């Protein structure tokens, strides 16, 4: 005859504490919150911006004259001297995996981090 497992009140409290700690870690590390904008010019990284840490919008002018608009959770091209202006028309990047480029100015912005749940892995366009 095996002895039945009986939980005391203190056991329940300890279980709750451990579960809460594990859940906190889950939310802190696994929620897909990290979102970093990596800006490269001609293959060289010139800026790395933690978009989750941005609290108010600002413009960032690169040495090649390209201007980026940085805002909480997003980044976009707002000025380039290229004729096509495809980069400016890309709009605001907000999800990990998104990228936009000004090809004539060799400027690339890519968002890194874990993609948010439910977001597409890619967009066919």
């Amino acid at each position, binding site marked *: 005859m095996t002895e039945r497992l009986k939980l005391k009140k203190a056991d329940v409290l300890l279980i709750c504490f451990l579960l809460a700690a594990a859940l906190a870690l889950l939310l802190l590390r696994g929620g897909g919150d990290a979102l970093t904008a990596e800006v490269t010019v001609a293959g060289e990284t010139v800026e790395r911006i933690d978009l989750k840490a941005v609290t108010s919008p600002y413009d960032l002018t690169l040495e090649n004259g390209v201007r980026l608009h940085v805002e909480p959770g997003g980044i976009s091209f707002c000025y380039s001297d290229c*004729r096509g202006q495809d980069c400016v028309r890309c709009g605001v990047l907000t999800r990990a995996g998104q990228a936009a480029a000004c090809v004539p100015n060799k400027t690339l912005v890519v968002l890194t981090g874990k993609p948010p749940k439910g977001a597409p*892995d890619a967009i066919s366009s």
Partner: protein
Amino acid sequence: MERLKRVGLIVLPLCLALLVSACGGADRSVSGASFAMGSVLTARVYTQKTEGTPLLGEIYAAAAALDGKISATDPSSEIAVLNAEGRGACGEDTLEILRSSLSLCDALNGRLDITLGAVTSLWGFASDTPRLPSAEEISAALVTKGTRKVRLENGAVTLGEGQKLDLGAVGKGAGCDAIRTVLDGVGVPAVISFGGTVLLYGQKPGGAWNVGVRDPFGGQEDYFATLSLQPETASDALFISTSGSYEKTFTENGKTYHHILNPDTGMPADTGLAAVTCVAENGLTADALSTALFVNGLNETSLGWVGQYLVGAVFVFADGRVYVTDGLRTAFTLTNDAFTLTDAYD
């Protein structure tokens, strides 16, 4: 001590499950982006960082290497030399792309034509200064087209009089095929987006790949539907390509012109479609078919080609109606209420 044992017995498995989930578990991935063929190439590979970072480098290198061979703008590329001189030597990669493309052009009744370069260069959609050519200019340039005028002999290619090649309709698909070869060597699940042509390699950890289909009336990152896709095995791949009238446009005298030309008229194709998305097991095929189907419109002939070459296709009409072929109906989910599904065509 007894209490710790009791509590541990219950809590430990739960905590372990939560910790594995918190640390990313099986879906660890590395992502990055680069340029090639005048477009952005984004890649996410599902492996450890130590293996993934060099793999991303190999992927970018494969795309850049092909770009160096078939680029229309790099004057030293094999295709640029061919266009400038009317003849030239080509490596096996370029020859294979030409063979496959020319064969598809013929099989698709000329709805796709890579020999239309003299006409597309008149329009200049790939340049900073696109323009509306005169009817006389277009007529004169149309005379140069024709797949039978292209001769491939012993690694040398000869074009017809005044003929120029334009691989814009197949280049990124061919680039995805080159990247697939890299991934075959390592067997790592990956999702690649090369200027909007998507390669899904292997099986995504934790479930099917989810691909957004571009909203032809919205912005570059807007999608109106998703496709839930999973290649059959870890070494299989699926390719998704979309052609739409929203790309590379310009407006002159109040009229907007797009870059997908009808090879018969040399003018932008107008069949009532705003976009066509194709899913295939080969990148060049997906890319080529999306252009050919856009030009041909939705009809019995097009559906025959879908059955012959593709897993399936999504046709979007300019009025927001959407036709999904049988092969994609279970994978397709509409996410924007402004669009309506239809079974009608012609």
